[in-house]
């Protein structure tokens, strides 16, 4: 028997289908990640995925909600991947587990589960980790060929799970601060942009390696746009604001403010523009609202990067703008059919 009420037909596109496509769109970025930094990231992705699914199942069970259909929606996996991509691949295993479990349990399910969380769970997980374990959060891998030593996959595993490095290898030899972090530190030491960018960790636009990973996320972002899984408003408004703000400062003082392309291809800007800010649950629904939301995030990202206490501002910019979403939605309701004149 069909349903009792019209419409009796639906388009066979499900939430899990959509989320699966977003996961697929992350693959070019992940592939480039592996190419430049080795397979350690795959370990944290796996760890985060397993933790996310287990936490999700537990939370659903505790609330007496159906477990299987909800687990199959792929949303927990997406949170896990976004979080894993935001933290250093060499972070100890328990950090990935703590961050992911917190993201899924507290910031998603305690707020009512899928669709009800006001904050992006992956960014909450990131915020918890960077506030609680700031030192571990700086252990970014040095791109292949740039460090004095590079670890084999087994050696990486050993470090992640047991914290043991091969004899004679120091942590400093295999990790480094991110290009954004280095820039910030060097500027504090009164360095000039021109000189700083001559350091070996910088490539054409931003950090060697990391700029390519960012490009991989752009590619994935275009896939999402082409499949209409996201609309143009958020990425365009975010990147444009970031570019314009950075551009203004750069024009005013090129010695101390790096050029806008550097900001685009550093840190989580591209991942954020296409994958994090575009999370439908935690972003506005109206076209104008999306633009305001993303522009705000772009501005905040720049301000935190240039003047704040953290090297990257993506996560906090996202969370701060998440707070504003209900307000933005309420004030940007579009005019409806037949009522576009002055009076409705």
């Amino acid at each position, binding site marked *: *028997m069909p349903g009792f009420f019209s419409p009796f037909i639906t*388009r066979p596109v499900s939430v899990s289908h959509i989320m699966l496509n977003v996961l697929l769109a992350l693959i070019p970025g992940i592939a480039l990640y592996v190419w430049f930094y080795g397979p350690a990231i795959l370990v944290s992705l796996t760890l985060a995925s397993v933790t996310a699914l287990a936490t999700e199942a537990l939370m659903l069970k505790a609330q007496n909600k159906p477990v299987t259909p909800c687990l199959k929606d792929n949303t927990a996996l997406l949170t896990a991947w976004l979080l894993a991509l935001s933290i250093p691949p060499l972070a100890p295993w328990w950090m990935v587990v703590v961050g992911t479990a917190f993201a899924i349990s507290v910031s998603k399910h305690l707020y009512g*589960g899928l669709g009800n969380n006001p904050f992006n769970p992956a960014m909450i997980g990131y915020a918890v980790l960077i506030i609680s374990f700031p030192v571990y959060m700086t252990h970014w891998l040095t791109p292949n060929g740039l460090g004095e030593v590079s670890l084999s996959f087994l050696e990486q595993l050993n470090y992640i799970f047991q914290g043991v490095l091969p004899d004679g290898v120091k942590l400093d030899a295999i990790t480094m601060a991110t290009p954004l972090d280095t820039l910030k530190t060097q500027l504090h030491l009164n360095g000039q942009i021109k000189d700083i960018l001559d350091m070996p960790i910088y490539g054409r636009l931003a950090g060697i390696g990391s700029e390519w990973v960012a490009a991989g996320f752009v590619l994935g972002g275009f896939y999402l746009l082409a499949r209409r899984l996201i609309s143009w408003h958020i990425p365009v408004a975010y990147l444009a604001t970031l570019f314009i703000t950075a551009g203004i400062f750069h024009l005013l003082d090129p010695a101390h403010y790096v050029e806008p392309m550097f900001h685009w291809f550093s840190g989580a800007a591209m991942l954020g523009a296409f994958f994090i800010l575009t999370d439908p649950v935690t972003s506005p629904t109206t076209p104008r609202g999306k633009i305001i939301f993303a522009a705000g995030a772009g501005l905040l990202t720049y301000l935190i990067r240039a003047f704040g206490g953290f090297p990257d501002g993506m996560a906090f910019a996202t969370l701060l703008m998440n707070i504003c979403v209900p307000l933005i939605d309420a004030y940007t309701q579009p005019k409806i059919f037949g009522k576009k004149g002055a009076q409705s």
Partner: protein
Amino acid sequence: MRTLYQFHGGIHPPTNKTQSNQTPIKQAALPSKLIIPLHQHVGNNARVMVEAGQHVLKGQLLGAPEGHLSSAVHAPTSGTITAIDMQPVAHASGIPDLCVTLIPDGRDEWIARESCCDWQGLTHTELRHRLRQAGVVGLGGAVFPSDMKLYAHKHKIKTLVLNGAECEPYITCDDLLMRERAAEILLGVEMMRALLYAEEVLIGIEDNKPEAIDAMRAAVAAGKHERMEVIAVPTVYPGGGAKQLIRVLTGIEVAAGVRSTNLGVQCFNVGTAYSAWRAIHHGEPLISRIVTVTGNVGHPQNFEVLIGTPMDELVAQADQLPDTSGYIMGGPMMGVLMPSMQVGVVKATNCIIAASSKLFPKAAPALPCIRCIRCADVCPAELQPQELYWFSKAKNLDKAEDYHLFDCIECGACSYVCPSNIPLVQYYRFAKSEIWAQEAAKKSADAARERHEFRESRIEREKREKAEKLAAREKSAVEARAQAPLQPAVAASNPDADPENTMQLKIQIAIDHAKEQAAAIKPKNTEQLTPQQLAEIADIEARRARIHELAKDTSDGQP
């Protein structure tokens, strides 16, 4: 080439039209009985004009229009009335309604028909009267009495839009009608144009019906119809909704609660134009219509069907397949599951889809809304369905109204695209009905309050009148006494002892008391209103009236 406009959103569901539009319209066999509801139109029930046991002729009046907004119902064939009682009917409510059951005698014998070879010779009032008496209503699904839509308006009607879009999947009855009876449709349109004094006629047909477009264009040329254009419009659901088609053809957006005639446009379905022509030129009341029978049947096709034909008898003629589990009247997007398979075909029946669980599998369980706004992307009314869903679910009805709940035309596009399988339209129907229920409750509470206040004031008035009457009587008694012979002086010197004076004092007290009482009755807050308050009240009343009208007219924009 005419510039066409777009409306926001819309979807492209599989059309499933080719199954049923390959063969010509077939005359359906005379059924064993006809179950004819007396309420097949928007407006008042038709008044029963026959009684059980009576023999009637084809075209004889069964129910006469009652009141301003109503329509007539006729016998679709000759035969005997066996019952006039409550039966399940083809309506969304599922509530039984008064039906006439007619057993055909097989002779199909017509009543004397008043045909008219020259409708131009008739006055417009006479034309409208004949349409009303012939039971002509909108056949696009809204079944609004056509005569009511054919008044020359105080705003000049520029454009008469003829709706042949037929955007719902599966349905092909208008397609076939245009292919086969284009000339008569256009004659009907000319009549409508004359009644409306409309300048131009735009006939909108979706471009997935090339044969119908060709047939209609040929008929326009052959009939030498001027200022009449057949326009192929893009195939997009719900492009056949009256508001959407008007938008596409003229660029005009008709908001909810606004009559299109106020904006210079009137819209009719092609089937209505055809029936209007048959009614005037041939004197044939609306006793049959074209119905697409499709879905889970061996031979999907279109039939010319007598109103009242039991659906199962009709579908059997298209070779119903055994696993059929029910009938959907209308299309899969806005159609209604029939309460029984034996209900009679009504004037609104454009299509019967035999449903099976294979054809319409049960939807997967609904997941939470992820605010992906695919619904907002496809909403032709440009609403925010995800917000309406949220408010409806929370029963936050004021907020739902703020977000234009009543602009929703229930086209189902949002439900169709929802990746979480949320039955969105159901939530909106629920919220609307809750609001109507509240309105009704408020109205009856208002009435009760008014009655109560009236009673209070009546009691007070009666009390006052009694007191005044008493006072008056006693006063006249005093006066009568005063005119009587003078009292001894001694009495005057001792007023306390004077019984008359004591009486007068008492009277004075009673009068004062009555006056006090009268003064104590405060004016009601509904009296002594400022002009501003009056205007506000008028505003509120107008809004309420509009909502009620909408309640009646929700099916108005049905594609």
